[in-house]
């Protein structure tokens, strides 16, 4: 929030420091301000969504219904998913991009700064509207974050209309944010920074932005069809009029699968910066990283029906989507190999960002493997809609995407605030989170394989022990995030002064500017240092 006081001294001729008061945040065109707002917003959503998750886990602590009504339980699972995906993970990555992309490529700001501010400010309004549905007649959306028709059309509570418009607003925000990032990366690189010298975080974000622009409109299309079915009597998702509920799933997952890569590609980028820094070696296989990211993105358009194996697809469909899905494991494997090879014979140290990055590599890989199991169509008939799926996507999203965000925040905090973070507290946060996350999600593999369905408030007795373990883990993980909050605030307010190159092995333009980064960086394009990366 207040990296400002310290940055006031360093101003250039035409520019001045930030404006005073609330107006600074409302009217800003500065990529660093906007990045900070995105990150704080994301953190707020992370805590709101987290409280919902804890409520869910509290109810599941024991079999039977203890705390909440089943209807409300469904609202919690739905809102938890929506808030975490669209409110916590995606905005966090956009915030990181806002802060880092211009500094990494030597640009004075984002390409379209006013639109940048608009992209952000749509979000608080969209989520205010989404969360307000909790207080409406009939309650909040209760059909799961995947909002399958006809549950979300014929049988939905009236608040679904607001949900639809909230999704439209998030889509507009994401598309404009993505356009900005693409224009910035393609157009604002400092002279000499060719595409194959582009830092990997920028590469992965460039490709993510392309995915966003390609699939957010499809999401808009599917919710529009829902709106028409609900309010204007069309029959897109109603077989009685010649439509098909399965059509909903096709269109949704055409968005949905690229969406999961939208949530992981920027994470790959962050990890590809942190590991070389703390292994003090250049990234192994830069070019192959770029090509792997691009192939993952292209393949991600061809695998959507792996979410629909049990819906009744023609056999050729099952086979095609099974093999296409497995193909994605190849470029993903290339990435994991490169990270490991980067560390091989490096002079490694284990500061907090590196710990999170290492945990990412190991735990994300576990999530990738469970994904491969799910990709086998015949066995997915057993796993589908069980806790095994929940375990899979939480492994890729929590110790995957979320750990990468935290690694990135810890890594770049010195650049943003000018202070080193408190390593002891950082390590404490890491270890409790690491243990908590595994206690929470690992047992879910077992109860899933044993047949416990997802999205239910009550369950058969044989699942009781593992559920209790998972709930305990969830509270450990959830509470440990308070340490994260403490760490961030403490680092903003004080701490050991950070040098320009806050980490010994860090390379790249962002480490050439002072810490904290002045309010305006690179009013004129910088010269590229000799050995990039």
């Amino acid at each position, binding site marked *: 929030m207040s990296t400002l006081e310290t940055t006031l001294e360093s101003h250039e001729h035409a520019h001045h420091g930030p404006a005073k008061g609330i107006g600074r945040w409302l009217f800003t065109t500065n990529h660093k301000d906007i990045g900070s707002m995105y990150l704080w917003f994301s953190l707020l959503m992370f805590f709101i969504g987290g409280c919902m998750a804890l409520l869910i886990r509290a109810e599941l602590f024991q079999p039977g219904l203890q705390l909440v009504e089943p209807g409300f339980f469904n609202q919690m699972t739905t809102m938890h998913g929506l808030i975490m995906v669209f409110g916590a993970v995606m905005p966090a990555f956009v915030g990181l991009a806002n802060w880092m992309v211009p500094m990494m490529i030597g*640009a004075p*700001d984002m390409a379209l700064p006013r639109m940048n501010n608009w992209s952000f400010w749509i979000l608080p309004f969209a989520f205010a509207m989404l969360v307000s549905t909790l207080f409406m007649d009939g309650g909040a959306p209760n059909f799961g974050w995947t909002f399958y028709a006809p549950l979300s059309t014929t049988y939905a509570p009236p608040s679904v209309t607001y949900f639809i418009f909230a999704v439209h607003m998030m889509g507009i925000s994401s*598309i404009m944010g993505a356009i900005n990032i693409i224009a910035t990366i393609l157009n604002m690189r400092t002279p000499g920074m060719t595409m194959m010298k582009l830092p990997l975080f920028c590469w992965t974000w460039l490709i993510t932005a392309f995915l966003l622009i390609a699939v*957010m409109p*499809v999401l808009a299309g599917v919710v529009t069809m829902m709106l*028409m079915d609900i309010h204007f009597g069309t029959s*897109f998702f109603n077989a009685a009029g010649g*439509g098909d509920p399965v059509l909903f799933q096709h269109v949704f997952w055409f968005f949905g699968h690229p969406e999961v890569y939208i949530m992981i590609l920027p994470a790959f980028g962050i990890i590809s910066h942190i590991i070389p820094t703390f292994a003090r070696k250049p990234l192994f296989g830069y070019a192959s990283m770029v090509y792997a990211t691009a192939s993952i993105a292209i393949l991600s358009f061809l695998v959507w029906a792996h979410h629909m194996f049990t819906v*009744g697809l023609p056999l050729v469909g099952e086979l095609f989507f099974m093999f296409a899905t497995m193909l994605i494991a190849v470029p993903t494997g290339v990435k994991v190999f490169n990270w490991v090879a980067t560390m091989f014979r490096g002079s490694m140290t284990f500061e907090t960002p590196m710990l999170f990055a290492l945990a990412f590599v190991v735990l994300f890989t576990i999530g990738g493997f469970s994904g491969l199991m799910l990709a086998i169509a015949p066995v997915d008939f057993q796993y589908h809609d069980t806790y095994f799926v929940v375990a899979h996507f939480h492994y890729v999203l929590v110790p995957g995407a979320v750990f990468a965000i935290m690694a990135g925040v810890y890594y770049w905090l010195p650049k943003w605030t000018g202070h080193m973070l408190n390593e002891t507290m950082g390590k404490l946060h890491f270890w409790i989170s690491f243990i908590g996350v595994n206690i929470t999600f690992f047992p879910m593999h077992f109860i899933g394989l044993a047949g416990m369905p997802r999205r239910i408030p009550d369950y058969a007795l044989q699942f009781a022990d593992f559920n209790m373990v998972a709930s305990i883990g969830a509270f450990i993980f959830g509470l440990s995030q308070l340490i994260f909050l403490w760490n961030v605030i403490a680092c903003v307010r004080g701490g050991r002064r950070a040098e320009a190159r806050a980490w010994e092995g860090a390379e790249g333009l962002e480490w050439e500017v002072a810490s904290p980064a002045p309010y305006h960086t690179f009013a004129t394009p910088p010269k590229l240092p000799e050995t990039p990366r």
Partner: protein
Amino acid sequence: MSSSTYYVPEQSRWPILASIALFLLAYGAGTLLNAMNADRGGGLGLVLLLAGALMMGLILVGWFGNVIHESRDGLYSPQMDRSFRWGMSWFIFSEVMFFAAFFGALFYVRTLALPWLGGEGDKGVSQMLWPEFTAQWPLFNPPDAEQFPGPREVISPWHIPLLNTCLLVTSSFTLTLAHKALLKNERMQVRRWLFLTIVLGLVFLGFQAYEYVEAYHELGLTLQSGIYGATFFILTGFHGLHVTLGTLMLIIILGRIVVGHFSPRQHFGFEAVAWYWHFVDVVWIGLFLFVYVL
């Protein structure tokens, strides 16, 4: 600041105001629709919706006004121009994907869902739902004809739609001629061709409206008449909205030409609208083929 550095605007009020306007629009529309669904009066929703729309209109005028002033003050470098070009291209790509969702739905229904419902193909078991149902396209007999009474007839492609195709394709040419004239700085010619383009767009819209009235009153082709009506209206409807928007933008461009904006070398505003117009034209070709003819 010299024009060689990239222009980073000072603080601006427009984004936050636009967010509020968007919120009013969305919240108003939601409230209105829910009230209509529950057969309540939609007073509050309508007020919010209109307030949001008005506010958004004013904001767009103000915001674009700012951009136009900055551009005419020479604050924008060629690099800025490229940012706008990338921005507009990717925006149009997002629109392509929006239409792709509806085209995809149309193809899926026609080639897979309906034949299955009719008992053919891999998932022909679905016929057990409505054993008498036979698949056809256009779909005159939805499976449950009580809930979704099928259309008596559909629009013939060879009357108004063919005419509309000619109109839109011609308008793409006239717009290109306007652009050529602008490059040669023949401003009277620019005005003429632009004016003609706008007229073509308006006539197109008029015909489209006439077609809708005919569909509703003569043919029984409505949103409620099963999947044919649903895909027909969502595709042509969103296309019509885009033509409306494009025509509005062309009118604004014509106004700017009249007051002397745009030079043969710098006229990205003009080009952006032209790109948009050509995109709308291409979508129409797709519509004509897949919605009307085939």
